């Protein structure tokens, strides 16, 4: 599916959004972005933060570093005996910071992979578009005329048989742990004491293969 181009950076009016749907989408995106910025600030500058956000629906989201509760308590001046320079404190901090660093690394790796896949998708899409210009049979089924459809159907049925045969062939080879068939197709039978029986060739594996495309959990 061609990706809908996003609207890009638009200048927005700084007033309550009037369309409910837009408001909800904006809330969702901006809340997420806000927490992301807060997280970055914590990592870069080592500060402690809490942010509390009520959603348009009345739910509450909160972000806190090290955690929301301790910041709230600190704000209300509860537990003033906490000594920020104790060793235990530092160890906990170090552990937390190290976890966050690893997680951030993991996240950026995945984000990179997404970008790679996205580009690959674009390339594939372009190839498809170019191919469709030359090949009428690649058009959507709904756009094809009756006789084209019949032709395509026949070709597809034939291909389906070929794929099934090729798959059976490979299954046979794999199951026998054989070296490959030579070009005359005689190699396998010469190498084994017992000739594969007709029963084997029509075994459930091969039969299952030709009937069960799409349900082949068992093969891998």
């Amino acid at each position, binding site marked *: 599916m061609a990706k809908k181009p996003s609207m890009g950076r638009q200048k927005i009016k*700084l007033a309550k959004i009037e369309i409910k749907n837009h408001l909800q989408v904006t*809330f969702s995106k*901006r809340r997420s972005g*806000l927490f992301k910025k*807060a*997280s*970055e*600030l914590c*990592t*870069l*500058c*080592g*500060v402690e933060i*809490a*942010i509390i956000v009520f959603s348009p629906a009345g*739910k*509450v989201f*909160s972000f*806190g*570093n090290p*955690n929301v509760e301790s910041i709230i308590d600190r*704000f209300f001046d509860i537990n003033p005996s906490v000594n920020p320079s104790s060793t235990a404190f530092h160890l906990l901090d170090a552990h*937390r910071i190290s976890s*966050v660093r690893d*997680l*951030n690394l*993991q*996240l950026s790796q*995945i984000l990179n992979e997404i970008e790679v*896949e996205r580009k690959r*998708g674009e390339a*594939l*899409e372009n190839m498809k578009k170019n191919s469709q210009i030359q*090949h*009428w*049979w690649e*058009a959507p*089924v*709904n756009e094809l005329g*009756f*006789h084209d459809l019949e*032709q395509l159907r*026949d*070709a*597809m*049925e034939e*291909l*389906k*048989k*070929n*794929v099934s045969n*090729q*798959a059976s062939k*490979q*299954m046979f080879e794999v199951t026998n742990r054989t070296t490959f068939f030579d070009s005359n197709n005689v190699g396998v039978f010469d190498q084994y004491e017992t000739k594969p029986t007709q029963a084997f060739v029509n075994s459930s594996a091969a039969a299952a293969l030709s009937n069960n*495309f*799409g349900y*082949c959990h068992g*093969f*891998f």
Partner: protein
Amino acid sequence: MTRKKVKLAFITNDSARKATFKKRKKGLMKKVSELSTLCGIDTCAIIYSPYESQPEVWPDTRGVHRVLAQFKRMPEMEQSKKMVNQESFIRQRIAKASEQLKKQHKENREKEITQVMYQCLTGKGLQNLMMADLNDLGWLIDQNLKEIYKRIDELKKTAPPPPPPRPPPEAPQVTTGNLHLLQEQKPAVGLTMDAMQRPQWFTDWMNNPSDHQQMNSFGHGDEMMLSFTDNNHNTMWSNAFFP
């Protein structure tokens, strides 16, 4: 505004860190304010830093007290449901990103196998395909056939098929106009014809408007997609592509 990529790690240089803190804190407060205005919601922010003895807050101390009171009034479960710290927040983002990657991967796989299918329809061999590819290919062919049969039925019902078909295309050589299958397999009935008819078929195909009038629409964005992907995306691929 400079756009250097900043490494996401604690800034060890004291003055650089302080400068970054001032800038980003200001930006963060601005974002909080915008969120509140645009969405008409209550929010507050509290920032403790080594640079100030008192925390920096938004909107103001009074406002923070108000929002915190509102927060505390909510049942404990509601408070903690959407509560995150850095770790849990990043884990959430990782989970979302992983889903997105998986989805993108599936989409690309589908495109890839579709390409392979059309290549094989026009003669490319199946020998180099792995079992997984063959499985997916077979599955995709079935999906396509379903569509084709359905469409053929529809056309039969709504309008009787037009007068005798033009002669079917010949198997080899011509690159643009025909479908032919593997060399080692005998093509199905209807797909071979003797050489004398070749020019006539080709001319007929080029001149036949009814079946190919859609050629003019090639190049229009979204309609190019095979319809099966639009309808069945969610349920059908999980078996085939990710056993």
